[in-house]
């Protein structure tokens, strides 16, 4: 079973390259309309992007509604619509432990990070990136540079897999071939990301997030109808595959709970999501953020659960022919059980989910190249807006070219993104911003530990040299180790010069 799970997780960001074609007139028209709206938002945002602050942090001027939908859209990639339902179909309810922590972690993130990061912006107007926050907290260019490097490595992996996924979806939508799908998708997302930066991304996310949530709810209603309600679905599956409906599905309990740990606690170190806290206009509006974003995520992930279990029941009962690969679950259900218009909206939502995630990655990747790494080396760039646009373009082209050489390399790159963010950033960022006893040495050591161990262990695992037993991912283990290193090194170096904190930073850590 474990050997079945890992390839499925590799498809987390990369829907199978053989999705059934969706090119029908209604679906194509909806897809075109979607891209026109995104292009219009990009054009509007471009006129409002005048400096690096606009480009990287939307001029610190977005409202609660925009923050909620942008955070939700950045959290959900195409995995929520394609890979996730496929994973549920394959391994059962154990796959739900990837998304269930959201009911706790959004509020936890608000307590741990949202207030601190947003208040940091009040005392340090120049703050733009998550490595900025780490650098300011620990007065350390080294910590800022190392965290920027970790982000850049993870972004490269995520970008290649997401761009490939976008190509697959566009090919399925318009039937133009995978290669052209990759380049068309890249062109659209680059168009609005280069010109409008995160400002375009945020307002595209408002549109895309709304689309995702609405589409997910509608599909769930069709799921209940097709399967005879949740009870009907459960009864059908229980008669043939009772293990599927156990809490861990076909996973080991250790692997399933590991998902909860990595995707729950690890959410405190996802820079493409948490850096959006800088952008909120009024910090007092954070009050309702956790409730709103949690509700939005629950709605948007109804499809993840519903399609996974419904297709399992339909295939089990013989009403649907067997799938050739798990990623077919969503497209097959849409084509066979929903109206074409809804199928078009959902597939546009998949493209939307991927594009909003890609935009967020592009933004933080470009910031790492043009801001965090130069600051670490003491050579801040003069025109960060221009440099950011060039970096965005270069990263996009590199990702598109890498996606053309798809297969093993892209799958490998996509595996460790979330885990690398978690193991390198959670201790220094989430604990560091809340514990005045943490030290610069602890931060640097934990980021280095996460970076080296995650890359080493994931490489060994991917090439089949060595992997953890019971389906445990290396990222889970390295997250634990980087936390322990952070605590131990901070305790050992406490009282030294690396313990010093600027007064304004201490204030935002204490309020």
């Amino acid at each position, binding site marked *: 079973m474990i050997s079945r799970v890992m390839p499925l997780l590799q498809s987390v960001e990369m829907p199978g390259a053989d999705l059934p074609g969706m090119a029908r007139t209604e679906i194509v028209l909806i897809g075109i309309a979607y891209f026109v709206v995104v292009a219009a938002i990009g054009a509007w945002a471009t006129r409002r992007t005048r400096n690096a602050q606009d480009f990287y942090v939307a001029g610190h001027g977005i409202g609660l509604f925009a923050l909620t939908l942008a955070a939700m859209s950045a959290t959900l990639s195409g995995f929520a619509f394609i890979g996730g339902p496929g994973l549920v179909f394959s391994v059962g*309810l154990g796959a*739900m*432990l990837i998304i*269930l922590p959201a*009911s*706790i972690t959004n*509020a936890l993130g608000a*307590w741990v990070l949202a*207030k601190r990061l947003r*208040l940091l912006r*009040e005392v340090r107007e*120049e*703050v733009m990136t998550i490595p*900025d926050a780490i650098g*300011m907290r620990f*007065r*350390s260019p*080294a910590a800022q540079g190392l965290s920027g490097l970790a982000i850049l490595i993870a972004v490269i992996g995520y970008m290649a897999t997401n761009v490939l996924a976008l190509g697959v979806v566009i090919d399925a939508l318009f039937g133009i071939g995978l290669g052209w799908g990759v380049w068309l998708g890249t062109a659209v997302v680059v168009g609005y990301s280069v010109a409008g930066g995160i400002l375009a991304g945020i307002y595209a996310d408002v549109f895309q997030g709304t689309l995702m949530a609405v589409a997910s709810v509608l599909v769930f209603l069709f799921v209940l109808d097709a399967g005879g*309600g949740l009870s009907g679905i*459960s009864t059908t599956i*229980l*008669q043939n595959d*009772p293990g599927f*409906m*156990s*809490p861990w599905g076909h996973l*080991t*309990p*250790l692997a399933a*709970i*590991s998902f*909860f*740990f990595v995707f729950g*606690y690890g959410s*405190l170190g996802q820079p493409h999501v948490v850096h959006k806290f800088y952008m909120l206009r009024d*910090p007092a509006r*954070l*009050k309702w953020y*956790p*409730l709103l974003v949690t509700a939005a995520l*629950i709605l948007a992930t109804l499809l993840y659960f519903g399609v996974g279990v419904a297709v399992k029941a339909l295939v089990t009962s013989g009403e649907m022919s067997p799938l050739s690969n798990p990623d077919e679950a969503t497209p097959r259900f849409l084509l066979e059980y929903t109206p074409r218009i809804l199928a078009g909206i959902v597939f546009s939502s998949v493209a939307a989910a991927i594009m909003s995630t890609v935009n967020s990655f592009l933004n933080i990747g470009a910031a790492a190249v043009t801001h965090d790494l130069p600051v670490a080396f*003491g050579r801040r760039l003069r025109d960060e807006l221009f440099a950011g646009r060039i970096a965005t373009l270069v990263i996009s082209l590199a990702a598109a070219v890498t996606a053309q050489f798809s297969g093993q390399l892209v799958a490998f790159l996509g595996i460790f993104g979330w885990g690398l963010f978690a193991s390198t950033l959670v201790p220094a960022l989430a604990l560091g911003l*809340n*514990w005045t*006893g943490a030290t*610069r040495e602890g931060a640097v050591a934990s980021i280095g530990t996460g970076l080296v161990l995650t890359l080493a262990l994931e490489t060994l695992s991917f090439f089949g040299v060595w992997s*953890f*037993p*019971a389906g445990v991912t290396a990222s*889970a283990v390295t997250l*634990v*180790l980087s936390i*322990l290193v952070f*605590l131990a090194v901070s305790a050992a170096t406490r009282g030294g010069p*690396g313990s010093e904190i*600027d007064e*304004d930073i201490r*204030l*935002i850590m204490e*309020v």
Partner: protein
Amino acid sequence: MKRLALGGILLSALLLAAAYGLAFLPEVAPRLAPSLLALGTAGALAGTLVLAAQRDGRLGILWVPVVFIVLVVGGGMVALILLPPVDPADPTLVLGLPPGAALLMYGVGLLPTLVVPVAYALTFDRLTLSSEDLERVREAGRRRRSEAEATGSGSPPGGGGVETGGPEGSGGPP
């Protein structure tokens, strides 16, 4: 309170490490490793919440979501580990799901939505960010900017991750 939170996080990390270590010995205690993992995960989440939410060593009413997380995540998952396997002959369904799946989906998954984010919203003005807190921070920001203008550096002290002391860096803003 901070010491308690840090102790909880450390203990949780050690439980998690032990759980992953026991993964190499699955035949020794098949239910022990996932139970330690569940308790470690709950402890890490709750400990980090306490570390972030406490003010001057006090947590106030926020002990409710903390205890809730420990009970629902830690207790709920350990209960799931101890449950017997699903019996296909048993027709009992709870809100459309077998009991174990229902506990996972509705208990561990959905129930916290009604407690944790709601607790955040209801206590926000009093325990998380009051208007007085915000004004103190804004005043600190204004003071810092005026100091920067007075020194004519154009770059406030300590900005942009710039080294301002200690052995790592050059000892001052650019």
